[in-house]
Structures are given as C-alpha cells and as structure tokens.
C-alpha cells in the first residue's frame, strides 16, 4: 500500500468511523444509566433513515401499503435530517415506555429487557416493511442541493477521491459529538445525567427525578441512532428494513471495544473500527463485516474493560 492509497483509506475510515461513534454513543448512554443494552437501537437507526428519506424525498416504491405514494412536501436535507433524528428520539422514548419502564417497575430480571427490547425492534422493523416494502431506497444525488458530488485530489498519477457525502457525514457527526459533549459536561441536565449514571438511588435522594432523566437518555440515544441511520442511509442507500441489524451488532462491538458505558470510549472505538474496516485489503473485502467482531474478541482477551473503560470493582 502506497501513501496515496493510505490517505484514501484513512479518509474513508474517519468518515464512517465518525458515524459508528455517534451510533455507539446511543448504546453507551443507555448502558451507563441502566446497565442494560438496548437491542432496539438498531431498529431506531433504521427508522431514522426511513424518516429522513420520507421527509427529504418522500417517494415510495411498490412493495408496501404506501406504494406509489408521494408525500406532497419536501424539506431540505439538513432540516429533514434534524427532524428525522428528533422523531427517532421520540421513538427512543416510546421504546423506553414499552420495553424498559414496565419491567423496571416490576423489578424483573434485566435479561428480560433484552427480550422486550428485541420485541419492540421486531415490531418496528416489520411495521416499516409493511408500510414501505423491503426494496432498496437511495437518496438522489441532488438531495444536498447544488453541490459537486466529489472532490478529487491529484498526487502525480494517483488520485484520492473524497465524496461530498463523506465530508457531510463527518462534519455532522463532529458537530453532534461536540454538542453532546457540551451537554453532558457543562450543563445542569448533563450533570444530573452523570449523577444518575453514577448511582441512581443516591441521585434520587438528592432530588433528581430519575425516571425523567432515563427518558431524556432514551431521547438522546434515539436521536443519535436515528441521525447515524440517516447518515449511513444517504451514503450507502437504505438496503431494506433489516439494514439496521448489522449496524446494531457492529455498534455492540464498538462499545465493548471502547469500554462499556464510557463516552470517550465509544468515540474512540467507533473510529478504530471504522479505520480497521477501511484498511481491509480489497482481496479480503468479503471479510470486512467480520472485522469489528474479531476486534471484540481481541479486546475481551487482552483488555476486557475496553480501551478507555474502568475495570469494575465487584461489590459484595
């Protein structure tokens, strides 16, 4: 691999890695507060992509019951992305209400929350399929307005191609990460969220309404998941209602890698896995999907608490 190829892979990796990072943050936020993995996160990712598509393009294929429907208004892409993500956040709240809150109030086995969140995921994905069918939807190239599709850097004979979409998803991800970092580190809400994550019962004694902050967390998580789904969808197209499942699983590898419940860890893990995938040689590209999971194994062997995680102290 020469330097130009290296640069190309590096740019591809950073772009997709930044999306993995914001997606994985959605998992991590919920895990840090409830200690449970929300298996409906992949479905929210899918939902976000379809919502943004509906708002920005609004034209459906022939598969589902919305066949040949054309939504009478179209929003600009940035607005669609934002509203799609907000609606995904609302979906996150619905997931909490349906799958997590009833179990928490009954003091049920945390394993059951895996099943109930998977149940919600199954319903969501199949409702989407029912509505819009299982065909591939891709965003038209002019959806971002009148800008050039790619930038080409010349290095003598060699070229490095950066698609505009890659720049957009990187920029959006960085802005989202910065806002989230500000929210969590510098605001009252963030302080309360950190308190709940540290110890929910103490936080509740100090006058924090824990259930409300759990809802906020699910909203943020859904927002990040839906945003990530929309960004992946614009870049690679929406390959049917099940396309979030693969990303959902990959997101798990990312958070284990960074350290369960660690916010900087999720960002670092996302970047590492994005880059690792980008550097898979073309001859082995069929194995690209397994890279994240191979990393997960190595991390479990070498550093089980993850790259930036705190090792857990078992309390008796």
């Amino acid at each position: 691999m020469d330097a130009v190829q290296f640069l190309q892979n590096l740019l591809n990796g950073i772009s997709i890695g930044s999306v993995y990072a914001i997606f994985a943050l959605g998992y991590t936020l919920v895990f840090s507060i409830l200690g449970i993995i929300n298996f409906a996160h992949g479905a929210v990712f899918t939902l976000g992509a379809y919502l943004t598509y509906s708002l920005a393009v609004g034209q459906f294929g022939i598969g589902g019951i919305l066949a040949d429907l054309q939504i009478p208004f179209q929003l600009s892409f940035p607005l669609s992305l934002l509203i799609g993500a907000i609606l995904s956040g609302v979906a996150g709240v619905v997931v909490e209400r349906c799958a997590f809150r009833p179990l928490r109030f009954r003091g049920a086995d945390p394993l059951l929350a895996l099943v109930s969140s998977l149940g919600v995921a199954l319903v969501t994905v199949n409702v989407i399929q029912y509505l819009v069918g299982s065909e591939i939807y891709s965003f038209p190239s002019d959806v971002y307005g009148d800008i050039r599709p790619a930038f080409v850097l010349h290095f003598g004979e060699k070229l490095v191609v950066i698609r505009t979409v890659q720049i957009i998803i990187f920029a959006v991800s960085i802005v989202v990460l910065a806002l989230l970092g500000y929210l969590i580190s510098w605001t009252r809400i963030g302080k309360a969220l950190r308190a709940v994550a540290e110890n929910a019962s103490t936080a509740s004694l100090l006058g924090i309404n824990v259930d409300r902050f759990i809802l906020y967390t699910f909203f943020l998580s859904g927002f990040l998941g839906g945003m990530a789904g929309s960004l992946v969808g614009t870049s690679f197209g929406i390959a049917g209602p099940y396309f979030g499942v693969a990303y959902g699983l990959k997101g798990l590898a990312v958070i284990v890698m960074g350290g369960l419940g660690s916010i900087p860890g999720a960002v670092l893990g996302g970047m590492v896995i994005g880059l690792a995938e980008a550097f898979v040689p073309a001859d082995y590209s069929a194995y690209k999907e397994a890279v994240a999971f191979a990393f997960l194994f190595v991390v479990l062997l070498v550093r089980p608490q993850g790259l930036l995680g705190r090792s857990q102290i078992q309390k008796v």
Partner: protein
Amino acid sequence: MEEFLQNYGFLLVTLVQQSLLAMSLYFPLSAGQLSLASPGFYALGGYVAAIMATADYFAPWRDALGWAIFPLEWLIAGLVSALLAFLVGVPALRLRGIYLALATIAFVEILRVVCLNLAITGGAIGIFGIPQLFESRWGYIWIFGPLLVITLIFSYRLDRSRVGRAFKAIREDELAAGAMGINPTHYKVLSFVIGAVLAGIVGAMSAPFLNTWNARQGTFDASISYLAYVLIGGGRSLWGPMLGAVLLASLPELLRPLKDARLIINGMVLVIASIYLPFGIAGALQRLKLSTLKRYASLRGGR
C-alpha cells in the same frame, strides 16, 4: 393418520428440533450465563454433517461405513463444537455480566461471514442435495425424539448432581459460590460447552432433515428466537424451554393467515410476555399451583 403426518409431520419434527435448540441455551442459563451462540454451533454441526455427507474427500468413508456415517457425523459435530466452545468460552467466561452474550454474538457473526466466503462451505449458495437418512420428513422424529428424551433425562440428572448444584450456586451468586470453593470459570465453561455440543449435534441431524445447508442457518435472528423460547417458556424449569419452543415455533404457523403482520404480532408477544410473565409460562404455572395448594390447605384447616 397418514394424511395428518403428511401435512404436519414436518412441523412436529421442527417443534422437537426447536425444543432441543432451546435446551442448548438452558444449560448455560442454568449457570446464570446468557449465551447467544447456539445458532453458531448449530450451523457448525450442520456444515460438518453436510461436508461429510457430500464432499468427494469423504467418499471412501461413506462407502466403508454405510449408514454408520450418520452417527459418526453427529459425534464429530459434537466434538468440533466442544472444542470451539472451549476456545470461545474461556476468554469470555472469565468476565461477569453481559460479556458472554456479546462474545457469542461476535462468534455467530464471524462464523457466518467465514462460511459465506469459504469454498468448502459452498459460499453464499451453501451445500445442497444432502443425502437423506429417512424416506419421509416425519421419519426424522426417530432421531430427534430420542435425543430430546436423552437430553431431558441428562438435564434432570444434572440438576440433582454436584455439577448441577454448582451451576445453580453460580447463578444465584457467583462470588459466594467462589467463596464456597466452586471454581466459577470452570463450571461456567462446562455449562457453555454442554449447550454447544447439544446445538452441534442438533445441527448435524438437521442438515439431512433440511436437505440444504447455508449461512442463513446461523444468524442473530435465530439467536433471539431461541432466547425467547427459553425466557418465555421459563428459564428456571426443565420444561420451560420446551414449552416456549413449542408455543413460539408454532406461532408463525398459527398466524399464517395474517401473512406479513405475523412478525409484528410475534414481536408484541415477546414484549407482552416479558412484562406479564417474568418467570415464563412454567414459572407462572408453578405459582398458580402453589397458590392453589395454599388455598386448599387453608380450606382444610377450616380458617
């Protein structure tokens, strides 16, 4: 009867097969370990059987052994699964909590991607035309049925043995179990390997039953179905996983008239069951029995 078996034989054998796969999750769960690896070992066992039954390399074996190749396939599938389960289990089971579930998801995904790309597993198309053991689908009840009976007897005996008690102790409190001189990692790996061997053997038996074998056999969706069988049937009772498997695996069949909406209903069943039946159906029945007995006793007592 003939006609009934013609129509429902396949479904009945499938229910037994799914019950066995649910049991393969029950063993690690009885030691408090959530494993989602069963579809991986199931797929692996199926590939072992399919390759041994169709590859040219094994032709002399098949000629020499005749029908005895089938039990040999099961044996080898079980051994390969045990070995791999040991290799996956040791790093993952040193840790507490959700790590085994995540490691097993990774294992299933890696195995799926590898099987999609290797020549020996037939790539994306898979292996087809696997020689049959019986003339009809229904015939396979004669291998799955006895395996289920053996598994149930094994599991019943295990519950009452030293090992079974160690599993339960770890499930209730790993630290306390360790303090009592039980080596948690040792028993956790053992419970995981038992489940893997069962899933591998079921896979090896299923390859001829399903006639074709491909990477779709071991997916995350399948992991979830098996987990749902166990938790909805009742993970703390020997009969729970079977009950869950029979109910949930026949659900799509019962909901067939609903066509596309049936997966939506399937998902709702999972949500509602986890909220209202936290100990599974078997657990709910147990409670009902206890409360009835209490009422009966209080009637007798004349209060």
